[in-house]
């Protein structure tokens, strides 16, 4: 029998030895290697690697890593002689002592850079690079064992293991953590962090009245049990699995059943489904009979590649496999497997062969839409018979539209034929006798033969009978799902190592097998008597012995709470992922994760209750600490978080009171400017407004057109797995949040809500607005500024409610507003205008 994992005992020993020695970054083995990576490689990368990279190797020399450098090139032998910079060819070429002076193109290196390289060479120990040939496996490849909690001086700060690890590193650096954040800040953190919505003024009041640690813990529990939790955390998962309701590329066809996978994910988070089972369902749910239909929905994970038009069938098949293998590696194993498709991984111990051995698990994979009855969970709170009716009704509508479309087209063509010559400009000869669809389309654009109404009708019919057509597309309501199965020919499907990833260049045939860096060998897996290859892979990934799986997931959970993971590139725990200052903390969390039965909620509790999480943004010694650790990788304070696109949109709806809490079901179709849709080559009918006011997680995820508001606020790149959202500040954000109809609608709704709740008194209105948007009262000076914005400190006595309501809407055209307001006596700008300002405040979109 071959082992699936390295024996634990040996690895424990390695880990124990490796960790203290590894110092700052456990992913980097030695001091000289570390320094090379930090200081020298960036210089080489900027100036030299274009010609002396691992692949280019001009005159045989690669400067990619220490081993390559010591090996040297064909002309001058080793590029570096340890301890002797002036005798090292690398320096001689850089200074021009040897000709031709390097770099061959571009200007010579700045002296400072050359000096840095010289210093590094001079301090390079004579044995540097020895043993680099066969580097011992380092974190995160080592087996997981429970780390001991470190000793710390200030024990009073330690609330749980998280704090112990963080504090011990801080104490090593002679730093102290920041004081705790305000109660309000902590409350906002857990609300946005767990459910993605702001606390209501009432919820805030309840907590701020009693902010004992028991109350804080109670608040966390209550949030974890709310169904909005799944909507928030499911969305994180959907980022990772490149979830979209359409296939992408030019046709961008609707994948009208994929919403069931989205709901499955949200449900799994709400039920705190054990993560190991969650993995199994997504990779091989079809192979676990006892998991039932619900698990089949999980394999929607596999059905998300982009069907690019290809010239040949095998190329299309490659697209599917590349997508599935690459995504599986990134999402579950935190390894950029995709690199190894064309060449051995440059940084991590993943040979190309391993890539194809993993691919072999997916070789028999068949993906298709198949009937899967709606489960009881999906139907809760829904009316299945209505869905059935909708599906049937829309089938009929579509048919009749198509028929009408054909009739009209024939009519138009007949007219064109009769008037053929006038369409063409005089100098254009060679007109055709037959009128083609293309001719008709162009004639419609010209608009000579056809009236505006006819043009519009033609365009509408074209749109309605293609693609999404409608939020009520019958496909959305049919009990179908995108499922996976294995081809009956599974045993005859061979997998070959493909040279450079090119499907025409077949190399050696390989059998299914796990990553050799984990198993310690590259023997094939024994598949005899097993029904599903994917199940074997799923079992291996979801095993507590897999060193990567649990580490990757706890780092992700950390990332979503803190804005940055302990390893900053959460889908790349390998050498390029930025390493971590806290491998032991990740191991401790991973250990707890597995021991809790793979409970994600258990990890939330550990993290949220730690003092590390509850630190303030501001540290009394921040200026000094910034010099030491500006990126805050030691967690000496909390870093601010700019809320994600979905959270901002949902918060607008929540604060305005317009949020429709209905969960699940087909996506809603956002209202997007017609112009934008035309340009993107897509079209749909917007859903009714109450539908559009649902959480953003239920918005149509269309690969060819992301909602401008979502994309402005760094929405996920839905073409591929998206492990980290960008955080940028660009002007389209202003267009989306300050100018858009959506924002103005929400501010008007918020103003109406405020009037409803507190009446016409401007001071009370301002107070309520602050409570709703920011969960705090305005300061006296803020109140003053807002009052003067509204014009006048108090409404005139006896002002009618009607007048107040009038003032809610935005004031009229340019120049009218001030005079009109003066005439009205009290109002200058509207309450809605004030609400809009509050919804645009930094404090509204940043989380302290």
């Amino acid at each position, binding site marked *: 029998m071959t082992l699936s994992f390295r024996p634990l005992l040996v690895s424990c020993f390695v880990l124990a030895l490796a960790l203290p020695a590894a110092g700052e970054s456990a992913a980097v083995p030695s001091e000289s290697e570390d320094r090379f*990576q*930090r200081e020298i490689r960036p210089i080489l*990368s900027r100036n030299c690697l*274009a010609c002396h990279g691992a692949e280019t190797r001009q005159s045989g020399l690669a400067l990619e890593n220490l081993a390559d450098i010591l090996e040297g090139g064909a002309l001058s032998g080793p590029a570096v002689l340890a301890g002797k910079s002036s005798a090292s060819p690398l320096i001689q070429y850089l200074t021009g002592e040897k000709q031709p002076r390097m770099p061959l193109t*571009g200007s010579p290196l*700045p002296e400072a850079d050359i000096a840095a390289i010289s210093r590094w060479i001079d301090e390079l120990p004579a044995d540097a690079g020895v043993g680099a040939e066969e580097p011992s496996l380092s974190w995160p490849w080592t087996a997981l064992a429970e780390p001991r909690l470190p000793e710390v001086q200030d024990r009073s700060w330690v609330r749980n293991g998280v704090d112990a690890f963080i504090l011990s590193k801080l104490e090593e650096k002679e730093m102290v953590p920041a004081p705790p954040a305000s109660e309000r800040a902590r409350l906002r953190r857990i609300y946005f962090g767990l459910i993605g919505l702001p606390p209501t003024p009432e919820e805030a009041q309840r907590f701020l009245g009693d902010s004992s640690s028991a109350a804080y813990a109670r608040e966390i529990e209550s949030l974890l049990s709310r169904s909005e939790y799944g909507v928030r955390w499911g969305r994180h998962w959907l980022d990772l699995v490149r979830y979209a309701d359409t296939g992408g*590329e*030019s046709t*961008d066809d609707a994948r009208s059943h994929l919403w069931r996978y989205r709901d499955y994910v949200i449900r799994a988070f709400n039920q705190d489904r054990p993560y190991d089972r969650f993995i199994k369902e997504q990779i091989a749910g079809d192979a676990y009979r006892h998991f039932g239909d619900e698990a089949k929905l999980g394999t929607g994970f596999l059905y998300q590649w*982009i069907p*690019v038009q290809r*010239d040949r069938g095998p190329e299309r098949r490659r697209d599917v496999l590349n997508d599935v293998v690459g995504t599986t590696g990134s999402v579950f194993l935190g390894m950029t497997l995709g690199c190894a498709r064309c060449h051995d991984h440059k940084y991590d111990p993943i040979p190309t062969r391993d890539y194809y051995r993993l691919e072999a698990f997916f070789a028999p994979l068949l993906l298709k839409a198949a009937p899967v009855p709606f489960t009881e969970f999906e139907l809760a709170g829904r009316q299945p018979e209505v869905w059935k009716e909708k599906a049937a009704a829309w089938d009929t509508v579509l048919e009749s539209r198509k028929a009408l479309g054909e009739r009209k087209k024939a009519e138009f063509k007949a007219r064109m034929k009769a008037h053929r010559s006038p369409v063409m400009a005089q100098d*254009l*000869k*060679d007109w*055709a006798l037959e009128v*083609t669809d*293309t001719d008709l389309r162009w004639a419609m654009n010209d608009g000579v033969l056809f009236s505006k109404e006819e043009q519009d009708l033609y365009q509408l019919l074209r749109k309605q009978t293609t693609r999404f057509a409608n939020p009520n597309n019958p496909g959305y309501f049919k009990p179908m799902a995108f499922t996976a199965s294995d081809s009956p020919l599974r045993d005859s499907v061979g997998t070959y190592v493909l040279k450079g990833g090119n499907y025409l260049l077949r190399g050696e045939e390989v059998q299914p097998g796990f990553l050799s860096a984990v198993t310690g060998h590259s023997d094939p897996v024994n598949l005899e008597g097993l029904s599903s290859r994917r199940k074997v892979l799923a079992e291996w990934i979801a095993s507590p012995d897999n060193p990567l799986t649990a580490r990757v997931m706890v780092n992700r959970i950390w990332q979503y709470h803190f804005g*940055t993971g302990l390893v900053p590139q959460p*889908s790349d725990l*390998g050498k*390029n*992922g*930025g390493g971590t200052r806290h491998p032991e903390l990740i191991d401790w969390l991973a250990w707890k994760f597995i021991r809790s039965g793979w409970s994600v909620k258990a990890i939330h509790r550990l993290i949220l209750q730690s003092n590390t999480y509850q630190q303030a*943004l*501001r540290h009394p010694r*921040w*200026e000094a600490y910034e010099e030491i650790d*500006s*990126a805050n990788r030691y967690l000496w304070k909390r*870093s601010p978080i700019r809320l994600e696109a979905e959270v901002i949109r949902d918060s607008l709806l929540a604060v305005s009171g317009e949020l429709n809490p209905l969960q699940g079901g087909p996506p809603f179709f956002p209202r997007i*400017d017609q112009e*934008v849709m*035309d*340009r*993107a*080559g897509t079209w749909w009918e917007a859903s009714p407004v109450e539908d559009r006011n649902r959480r953003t997680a239920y918005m149509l995820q269309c*690969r*060819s*057109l992301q909602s401008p508001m979502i*994309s402005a606020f760094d929405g996920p790149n839905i073409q*591929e797995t998206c492990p980290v*959202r*960008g*955080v*940028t*500040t660009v002007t*389209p954000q*202003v*267009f989306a949040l300050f100018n858009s*109809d959506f924002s103005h609608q929400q501010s008007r709704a918020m103003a109406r809500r405020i009037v409803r709740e507190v009446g016409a008194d401007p001071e009370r209105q301002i107070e309520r607005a602050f409570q709703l948007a920011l969960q705090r009262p305005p300061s006296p000076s803020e109140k003053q500024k807002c009052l003067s*914005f509204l014009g006048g400190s108090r409404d005139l006595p006896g002002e009618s409610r009607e007048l107040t309501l009038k003032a809610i*809407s*935005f004031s009229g055209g340019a120049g009218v507003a001030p005079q009109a307001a003066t005439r009205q006596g009290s109002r200058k*700008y509207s309450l809605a205008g004030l609400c809009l*300002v509050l919804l*645009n405040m*930094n*404090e509204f979109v*940043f989380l302290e």
Partner: protein
Amino acid sequence: MPKPEFSFCGQVEPGPDPRLGGLGRRDFLFRFGRGLGSLALSSLLFQDTLRGSRPRLEDPLLPKAPHFESKAKSCIFLFMEGAPSQMDTFDPKPALDKHHGTPVTRIYGSMEKRIYVGSPFKFARHGQCGMEVSEIFPHLSTCVDDIAVVRSLHTDSHNHPAGCFLMNTGVSIPGSPSVGSWLIYGLGSENQNLPSFVVLPDRRRGISGGAVNYSNAYLPAACHGTMLNPDGVPIVDLQPPAGTGREEQEASVKLLNELNEPYLESDPSNSGLLTRMKNYELAFRMQFAVPGALDIDSESEKTKELYGLNDRITEPMARKCLMARRLVERGVRYVQVYCSGWDSHENIAAEHRRRGYETDRPVAALLKDLKQRGLLDQTLLVWGGEFGRTADNSMSFFRSNPGRDHNKEAMVMWFAGGGIKGGTVVGNTDELGIKAAENVYHLHDLHATILRLMGLDDMRLTYYHAGRLKRLTDLGGRPIKEVLA
């Protein structure tokens, strides 16, 4: 020397880092923190102060020094979507005319009997260089001494969307940054009041493959392409909804800044707070800057006539070409002008003639206008489609109205402007124009050439993503030396 990759993060610093870093704006805050509210709407105060400080996280839009000295500062890419035919535009094939009507059996999708199609257009030599150009471009023919034609290009796909992705992003599947995004990433922007990467679409249809064609993908969002509508409201939500007075808007921005000010104290190291405040003022200025840049009505009657604005058929392209000139004049880095409809499977004689008529005068006018304003030197013009066309046609179309189908093995493009050696013809296709045969260049080489002309080294313009340093040209391209002046 400036770092070419401002966020190289292989082993150095992992990015993108949501923590916005210190940015060294402390000094600024201490000096101006108090008075910010009253300074609202006071233009570029932030920017100038910031330049003096030591930015750790750069504003990706600040102008950056190129890798090489370069003439071209802006690029206008005239994208002839649908793929113009090489043998009917700039690559005459008299041998093919002799084969006209001859059958050939080959694989096009499947094995089929096809018929060779001679070009329905006459070619003539023009200019001092004697370049041969098809009769569909009478105006452009007068500019050939400024043009360098490359006849020997090829690409990887002959499907429209994949071809467009390849031309725009270098990769056949969606999800990679567009050429324009790479340029912004490498060079920054020269005008902070206008989007630096602009797309002017064809009103008749969307770009094949949609918005991912001008997406920043994994590059910073500031590098995104902005589609400006040449006919109506240029940018959606650039202006607030009707009924919001300018005065109210100003008052709102002022109040917003005043309310934001005390919050700066919550985290002095968060540069995002200040940048956000700056953006509201910037957006406000853009409301005037963008329509101003696109205001072609203010051009002289002579210019309008030159571009063909008064001809119904040339008007759409004329409008976009004129807008493109006005945009590069204002420092916009990359403008893409689309003209669709080149996909002439059928009736190429009429269709290509029509596309020629639509584009010839406006494009030639753009070239002449730039030249006479002294802007041609600093503007790179690139013209072409997503692939080339076949020498043969299906039987059915040939019988009705011959056209040409898709061909990725040969395509023609031309360059003009900054850094280009005019009057040049590079490479050749085989006798019938089926395949690039001499001095063959791949699309990656085209991209490397564009970057080189704009002062960037495609090998050094990298961004760390998904486990490795990504480039526009993947493993690198070879600049087309023959076109470089």
